[in-house]
């Protein structure tokens, strides 16, 4: 599904060169739930951003379904992200001025879908995360766990093949964290959605199919 081929990411300033990722080779097969762990600053989020085409590697190649994305322009990358990928962020990143259902609809705005269909898909996604009764609320009226469920609904509304989650339970207490994790596992099992999750939580990582460990930008396990 996703294949990272010798990926490196180096940040350069005038005086310092920092290697965030060092020649990473990683293959995530379709339907796998993969977790990435490592200490802070080891390059987990950078790796996830590169897999999500939010950032470009300094060298190496990314292949999704065997297709290299090296020569994609900005518009093509945007389309690819819209159709194939869904994101869940640690701090939710919901738009405060939009209602819950409008937030969930967001990825569909960039597709040729009627407003009616958009509405019904967003309602179904909210139903799937158990928040159908909260669609008219605004983010500031929700708890942390509810916000993350809205974020999950937003990630799945476009039925992407891959979900990339950056510490989705990082800002939640253990009960809410478990709830969110259960939803992700269900998505993975029932819909065969490929999920790559960055986490600090060993307990959560153990619930996934495979664990990759990073240390100083290098894959160690």
């Amino acid at each position, binding site marked *: 599904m996703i294949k990272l081929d010798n990926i490196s990411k180096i940040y350069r300033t005038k005086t310092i060169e920092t290697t965030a990722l060092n020649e990473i080779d990683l293959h995530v097969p379709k339907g796998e739930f993969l977790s990435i762990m490592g200490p802070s600053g080891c390059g987990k989020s950078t790796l996830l951003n590169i897999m999500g085409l*939010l*950032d470009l590697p300094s060298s190496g190649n990314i292949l999704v379904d065997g297709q290299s994305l090296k020569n994609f322009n900005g*518009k093509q990358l945007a389309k690819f992200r*819209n*159709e194939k990928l869904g994101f869940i962020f640690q701090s939710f*990143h919901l738009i405060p*001025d939009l209602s819950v259902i409008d937030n969930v609809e*967001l*990825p569909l*705005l960039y597709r040729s879908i009627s407003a009616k269909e958009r509405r019904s898909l967003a309602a179904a996604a909210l139903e799937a995360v158990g928040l159908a009764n909260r669609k008219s609320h605004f983010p500031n009226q929700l708890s942390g766990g509810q916000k993350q469920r809205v974020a999950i609904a937003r990630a799945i509304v476009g039925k992407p093949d891959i979900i990339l989650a950056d510490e989705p339970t990082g800002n939640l207490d253990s009960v809410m964290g478990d709830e969110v994790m259960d939803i992700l596992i269900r998505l993975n099992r029932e819909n065969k959605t490929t999920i790559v999750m960055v986490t600090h939580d060993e307990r959560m990582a153990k619930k996934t199919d495979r664990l990759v460990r990073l240390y100083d930008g290098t894959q160690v396990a």
Partner: protein
Amino acid sequence: MISNYIKLAWRVLGRRKFFTFISLFGISFTLGILMVIFSFLQGELGNNAPNSNKDDLILIETLRLQRIYYDTIPVVDTVMLNGQEIFDTTMETRRRGASRWNSSMNNGIAEEFLQDLPSAENVTIFNGDTQHDVYVNGIKLTLQTLYSDANYWQVFDHQIIEGRTFDDTDMENVAQVTVISTKTAQEYFGTTDNIVDRELLLDGTNFKVIGMYQDKSKIIPFISPDLVIPYSNMTLANQDSYYHGYFTTVIQKRSDVEPDVVKNEILTAATMIPMDHPSKPEGYNEVILMAKTYNEMYAQGIYSDDDASKSLNIMKWVLLGLLTFFIVLPTLNLINLNVSRIMERSSEIGVRKAFGAHQGNIIFQFIIENIIQTILGGILGLGIAIVLMKFINTSGFLGTNTMVFNTKFFIYSFLLTIVFGVVSGFLPAYRMSKLNIVNALKENKI
């Protein structure tokens, strides 16, 4: 998608109330003031009664007598010819300066030389410089009196409310009649009803009122005098000379003729004026009739230049400059405000891009938001303009002249505000649309 953007724009405007107030104030105030200024200028310079023929009027307020001084300069030089030094002297004549005597013209000049211009449809002669003090119940009233010929009523289409205007017979008979404005009627007689046949005492002479016209307060006195009297009632013998006197001539040209054609005809007519009259001051050898269009005359009143067309050009540039200033300043202000407003939403931009928005989507979204904001500002501006005009009209700042709301100008102004909405939104939106997604998400303001 657009409905989503509109919804978001509405909520963003509501969330940032102070910012919204500042932005809307800038837009609406600018638009409101522009509409009031335009309405005033339209009232003053528009083709409306009694000045409906404004674009066809050529005015001669000044007759110039001129003499030019010349210097003869001998240049003495020597050359060697066949070994002998000889003088080679040349004489050069240069213009050193001119003496000019400007004054209004004698009615005789107008009657004799300006009545039959080929491109003229009508010609009127008048004196509009006279003021009379009259007393009503012991209170002084200063009246702006216009002495004119009968043609005045054809050139200037005053709305006659009662009675009639005077005609050539009244002129010839030196009839002591007057046509007064509604304002004068109200102030002098205390009413505007049944004014005809009443008498108005001016400088010891009773003038019979034969008509009354609707007053339109304008800055130019001859457009809205307080009363009009046949000029044959003036003591014309007191005029300075054959050339100079008390009168202004207004030529109403045929509408199919360019003003310059008439101006040239006037120049030619001036050459026919004899320069050997005994009243001509010594040395003056040229007479020039200073012709100008109505707009040129108006501009000359604001910026005086010998060349009226130059005055008009300068006034046009000044107006254009003011208009640009009024538009550019709030646009820059909006751009500035929008940069900070959009910067605050960088993490939203990051999320949108992560979920598939490309640069064009982001630009479009913020431009839509800006257009909504400027449309709101436009509607408020319309309200401000209407309230200001009503205030000015009821306060009497412009006398009886009233400001009229101009729908066409409002539409133009409204389109203009949308344009500056787009412009002021585009630059910051373009800048932010290029934001790196990861950096944008790190802002984490949502």
